[in-house]
Structures are given as C-alpha cells and as structure tokens.
C-alpha cells in the first residue's frame, strides 16, 4: 500500500469571480518528486501556498502526514521547507549569515557547513547576497528550504529565469535530495524539467487538474510515437486532408507551426510532400521528434504552455 505523505481533496480558493483553485485533489507519495505543471495563472502557486500555510482555503481537506488539518500551522511548518516563486533575500547579509538567520528560526536544523556543501556554495559562504549570480542565489534558496531538514520540500518554479547550466545544477541538487528520501513538491512550466525530475505530474489549467500520471504514461496517452513539426502557412483545406489521414493536426496560425501526430513517419512525410506539391505549400522547416509533456498539454487544451 502506497505511503502518502500529503493528500489534498477538493481544495478551493476563489477571489471574487476568479476561481484560482477550483476543486483540486491529489496525493503525494513519500520520497517522490511530485510536479504541478501548467501555464502561468493555472493555479499552481495558489495551490502550494495554501499547503504552505500562506493562504487559507475556501474549502477542501488537507491530510498532512496522516492528520487532517484545516490549515497548515506552525506544527506542520516544522516539517516543510519552502522555496517561493519570487524569493528575495536580504542583500547585505552573507550566504552564511542568511543560512544562520533561518537556522535560528527552527528548533531543529542542519549544520550550515553541510548545507553549503550540498548546494556547492562553500566558496561563497562569506559573499554578500547582492554579489551572487542567479544560479548561486537559487541554490541558496534551496539550501534555505533545507535548513530545517524538512520531510517535504515545496519548490515553486525553482529554475525560472536560470540559464541552462544553472538549471541543470539545480536539477542535480533536487535529484540528490530525492535520493536522500525527501519528498519534493514542484511547480514548473518547463515540460523538460517535469519530465526529467518527476515521479508524478498533475497538469493544471484554470484552477483544475486536467490530467495526472507519471510522465511516460502521460506521453503515451497521446497514442502516437512521433510528432512532425512543420513551419508552413496552412489553410483549412490542408488541415481537413490531414485530419482525414488521422494525423490530428494542430495549427498555430500565429507562429505558422503545424504539428502532426503519427506512428508512421515515412508515409506521413510522403503525404506531406504530395500535399505540398498539389497545393504549392511553402514548407520552411520540418522537425521530427518524440512527443513530450508540452504536447500532452497542447492536445488537452489546444494551447501551448509557453503561450501563456
């Protein structure tokens, strides 16, 4: 039987007519990386800020480590570590002082040296926060979330704004934390991040969970092995012909991007070339790739994650 460290049932948070979180339910397995994936404004941050105790839900149930609670209080906060979406730190404190400041908040905490080693900031221990790079700052923020040796880590878009190298460094830290048995609840709008890190993904849109599962099963749910992405000016006649060939065409007229799903790349390419000749289509670029979580979102909503 699965050991769930956190369960959320029918969570709601409304701001007037805006349903920021509209009946969200999920379960998080202990020691897993659980991801809320969705575009900006999907309700990911509001959902985890309710679980972090920053917001009071209008309705719903939270079962935290087996105990049903109406609101996350200081008792539960002892066991959680948080990295907020936009975290600023006091610029005139050093890295060590910042860790020590947060350490002083908790009765139980890790050694500062151990945390510095874990986030690879030993050589920056005496540097002021204002002098850190974006990646170093983000690593420190994860270190601060770890300072009380929590059981659950909430990381709200921890890699937004980081360069690819810094992003990969952050992923390494998160995978190491998972290896140490920590449960990580992550929000992101990067499908690659969700795909690489997650054990379980909940795709959110307009305050609701529209699909959930492990990344591979979500991708397999598309029932197509490959995607052909074409930069072309398509018209309704072409789209109709592609639909009748069971290629599920999705066309983004703004970016002139056509995506076709197929299990037979060769015959689909032949069909595409034939249609191109018959209708004098100007194909500028063709990419054949494996489907990913973004395609899952696209097929569910008709919109791209990045469009938001």
């Amino acid at each position, binding site marked *: 039987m699965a050991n769930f460290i956190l369960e959320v049932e029918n969570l709601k948070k409304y701001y007037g007519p805006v349903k920021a979180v509209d009946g969200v339910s999920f379960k998080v397995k202990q020691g897993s990386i659980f991801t809320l994936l969705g575009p900006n404004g999907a309700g990911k941050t509001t959902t985890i800020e309710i679980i972090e105790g*920053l917001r009071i839900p209008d309705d719903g149930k939270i079962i935290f480590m087996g105990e049903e609670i109406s609101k996350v209080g200081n008792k539960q906060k002892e066991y959680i570590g948080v990295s907020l979406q936009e975290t*600023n730190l006091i610029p005139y*404190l050093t890295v060590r002082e910042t860790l020590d400041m947060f350490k002083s908040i908790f009765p139980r905490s890790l050694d500062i040296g151990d945390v510095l080693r874990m986030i690879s900031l030993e050589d920056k221990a005496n540097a002021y926060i204002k002098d850190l790079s974006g990646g170093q700052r983000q690593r420190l923020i994860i270190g601060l979330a770890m300072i009380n040796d929590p059981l659950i880590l909430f990381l709200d878009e921890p890699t937004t704004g980081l360069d690819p190298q810094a992003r990969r460094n952050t992923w390494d830290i998160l995978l190491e934390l998972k290896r140490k048995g920590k449960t990580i609840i992550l929000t992101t709008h990067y499908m690659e991040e969700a795909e690489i890190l997650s054990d379980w993904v909940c795709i959110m849109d307009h305050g609701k969970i529209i699909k959930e599962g492990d990344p591979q099963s979500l991708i397999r749910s598309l029932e197509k092995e490959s995607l052909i992405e074409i930069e072309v000016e398509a018209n309704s006649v072409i789209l109709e012909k592609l639909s009748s060939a069971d290629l599920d065409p999705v066309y983004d007229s703004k970016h002139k991007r056509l995506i076709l799903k197929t299990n037979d790349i060769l015959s689909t390419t032949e069909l595409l070339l034939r249609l191109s000749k018959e209708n004098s289509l100007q194909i500028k670029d063709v990419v054949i790739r494996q489907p990913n979580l973004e395609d899952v979102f696209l097929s569910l909503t008709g919109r791209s994650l990045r469009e938001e």
Partner: protein
Amino acid sequence: MMRTIKLASYFFKSSARDRSDFFWLLVFPIILLVILMLIFPSLYEPKEVTFNLTLLSQDGMFSEIIEKVFRKLSEGEHRVFRLSVLKNIDKNLDHEIERLKKKGIDLIVEIPEGFDAQMLNWIMLNNLGITASPPSINIYSLKHNISSESAYLTVKNVLQKLELEFIKRVGYDIKEVESETELIGTRSTFSYIDFIYPGIVIFVVFMTGLFGIGLHLTWLKESGILKRIMVTSLPKSRFIVSYVISRIYLIALQITLISLLAKFVFKTTVNPLSPPFIGYTLLTVLCLSSLGFFLASISKTTSSANAISQILNFPLQFLGGLYFPVSGVPWAIRWLVLINPITYLASGIRDALGIIKSPYPLYITITVPLVWTIFCLLFTIKRFKLEEA
C-alpha cells in the same frame, strides 16, 4: 530567547550595512547636529547666566530670610541674579509686570502681604495636626520666553534647595502671567546645545520610525522577504519581538552617538541618563515606532511608503519644534503643530530637563503621544497582514 535575539541581530545588521540606511539613520543626524551648531555659533557657547529679578518683599522674619538668600545669590562675579528688592507691592506690582512684559526683567517673585502671619498660623495649625493650605509665593514669568522660563526654573530650584525648614514644609504656589513673545534671538542667556540635543534625539527616533521601520518593513513585504520568513514555523509574535528589538538596537546606537557628540564635543549640560530624559525618550520610541508600523500598514510598495514618509517628514519635523520653537506660528498652520505628536514630545522632554518650560501641561505632553501610539498600533493590528504579505 537567544534565537529571537539572533534573528534581531540579523535584522539590525541588514540595516546597519545598507549604505542608504547607514547614512540617513546614523550619519545624517550627526551632520545635522553639527550644521545646526555651526549655524547658531553665538548660541552654542554656554554662557554664565544672570537673571534680572524683582523681589517684591514684605517686612517680617520669614520674608527677610528669603530676601537674604536672594541677595546672597546676587553678589560677586558669578552672581545668578541682578536683584531689585521692592517693598510696596500694591504700588509696584503692575509696574514690574509691565517691565516683565517688555523684557526689562526676567522674573518677579512676590511674597504676598500677610505671608509671615500666614506662615506662623500654618506652622501652628500643622503642629496641632490640622491640615491647612500653605501660604503661597507668587512667581510671575513670561511664557515662551527662554530667559524668563530659565529664571523661573532657577528660582524654583533655589526655593527647593533652601535649607530653611519653613520653606521645606510650606511649599509654594506659582502663578503665571501670560504674554505673547518670541523665544529665540532676543537673548543669549541659554545654551543652544541644551535646547537642540533633545530635539535631535527625537529626530533620530523619528527618522527610524519613518525610514527604519515604515520604509524597511514595506521593503521586506514588497520584496517577499517577509513572506519567506512567515512561511517558516516562526510564530508571528516572535517575528514582531525580533524586529522591534532590532530597531531598539538601531535607536540605541543612534542616541549613543548623538549623546557622545553632544556631551563631549558640544558640552551639553543635559544628562542623558536622567530619568526624565530616559522616560521621554522611551515615550518617543513608542510613539514614533508606532508611526512607522502605521506607515508600513498603509503602504503597498516602497515607492508609496517613500512618498508618504516624505509628506509626513517635513511638516512633522519642522512643525514639531525640534529646531526652533513653534508656539508663534500663524493660526493657519497652528493646527499642524497642535496635532503633531513631536510638538508634545519636544516640549515635554525640554520641560522635564529644565531647558524650557512647556506651553502644555505635563499630562498633555504624555497623553497626546500615547493617543497617537494607540491609534497607530490598533490600525497596524487591523491592516498589516504578515501571512499574505
């Protein structure tokens, strides 16, 4: 408790290391004090004070003892009074009051007719165990006139220190004569540093209230640092206590620096460890810190907090009588003086230290700042939300 202190020390460090905070909260008050002392150089050097005093005396044993004491204090090179003793009160009182109003003299001490008889009667009643009102000595001073009020305090002090048993027992009543007059620039018989030092102390607390609390707390809120702290298991009460302690560190450092400068460079005679000074300073900290919390409650961004603090800063500072007396300002802006808590704090602390008499009763100088404190704190409790910051 140690963890609370540690958190407070980091809040303090963050302000002390911030160049802007360091300048405005620690360096600028020192510069201001030096500039003010350079602008008023003739007022800065403490001078020997000699007050022009008229004693309207009576014949009789007790009156003559008082007269002798004042004569003694009016002798020699370092005399305190330039004394003129007159006997016929009915004939001379009105004339002397006119002289007082025209600043020809600083003070009138009147031993009323029948004083000796009243004294004897009172002592007898006292000996019989009957409680009766003591006879009074009337002192006439000019309100809002530094020399006159200083003379009043000196005479009050002399009377208190007289080693005569009868004065100790009977006490005295004081009556005042009101007169419109300007305070500064007419005489140079007081020390400007004694006047300005408590003003600068109030100023540094005021700056900490507006910028060190109001603006700083708004920045903590706007930048998400407060939210980051509140998402931990830190109880709200512990955060507030830590933050208040950090501001007390800051204010203590500011007052220490200003006091050292005032004491050892500008030679103030004000004792910063005297109970009235400490008492009013604590009241100032309470009131003006609350104002800072109020500012943080009404400001959503540092830009708005900055704008509001600038709007509050100049009227409260300059119409609070920190640098010059404001009792003579036109009625059109008088209301700003009267609703300003700094007016009462500055008057109260100077009166309590014997620098200049407050135009307001003591209880008013305490009550008005306390009303401000309560209003600001209640507003903060209602409006300032830590959780959803």
